[in-house]
């Protein structure tokens, strides 16, 4: 699956840059939202087939916040190290990493507040985070543990990276992943505002 995923990504980039127009592939790439919707229903069905899952998740109570808080703290630490290494502004460094993988929103917000250069870095670094999550999930599931697979995914753990999650972890982790994605996505705009206030 991992190899197929890398091939699909490279083929997509090649097709996009080539300027070719094949109607089926054009339709496929234009309908990425619809594909995501179908995927979400399929992942939901897969989770729904496992009974007693909700009761298990309810039993976690406040422990559910450990994942998003850990992800935010880890990203913030990474941002501080980046700031020390690159000598950029504190606000910009933290804001770029505060996107937690949500590249579209972070790219736009950082461009508005700090200009195109930092906006581009915000876009690409968060995009790389999402792509890395796709490919790291099988390895983290094998060598670390299932909940840690959610860490690189950050805010994307509720949508785009969910299909890899269901393939390489289990249904309980998938539900944790959805909850984490919702909490991280809610936190991103506040984090960015906070980091700019701080810097």
């Amino acid at each position, binding site marked *: 699956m991992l190899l197929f995923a890398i091939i699909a990504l490279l083929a997509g980039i090649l097709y996009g840059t080539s300027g070719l127009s094949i109607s089926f592939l054009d339709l496929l*790439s234009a309908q990425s939202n619809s*594909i995501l919707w179908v995927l979400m229903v399929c992942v*939901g069905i897969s989770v*729904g087939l496992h009974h007693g899952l909700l009761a298990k998740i309810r039993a976690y109570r406040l422990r559910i916040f450990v994942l998003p808080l850990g992800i935010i703290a*880890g990203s913030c630490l990474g941002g501080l190290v980046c700031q020390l290494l690159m000598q950029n502004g504190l606000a910009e460094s933290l804001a770029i990493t505060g996107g937690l993988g949500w590249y579209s929103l972070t790219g736009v917000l950082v461009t508005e507040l700090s200009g195109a250069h930092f906006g581009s870095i915000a876009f690409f670094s968060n995009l790389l985070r999402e792509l890395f*999550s796709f490919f790291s999930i099988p390895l983290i599931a094998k060598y670390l543990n299932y909940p840690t697979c959610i860490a690189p995914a950050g805010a994307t753990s509720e949508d785009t990276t969910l299909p890899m999650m269901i393939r390489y972890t289990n249904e309980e982790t998938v539900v944790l992943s959805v909850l984490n994605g919702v909490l991280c996505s809610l936190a991103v705009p506040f984090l960015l505002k906070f980091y700019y206030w701080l810097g």
Partner: protein
Amino acid sequence: MDVILLFFLGALIGKYLFPLHFQPVLEKLLMFFTLCLIFAMGVQLGQRENFFAELSSVGMESLLFFLLPTLGSIFVVYPFSRIVFPNLKKKEEK
């Protein structure tokens, strides 16, 4: 928000309507649509104006700004997850 709603709609279908013997078909569909989604992401990236030029100018900085926070998240989450979710282990331990 729409994806969350669709996820829960799917969960309801899975719980009450979906025949269990179609699960292998569902797994194949999941794999197919995941690859389609990754391909579509690649196309959107490739179609971005000045994609390679932009990537070469901010590539190294972007790499650093992606790598350190991502690794930071993994290093913080891993030890805590071992304590908080002891039943969710890695693949071989199951």
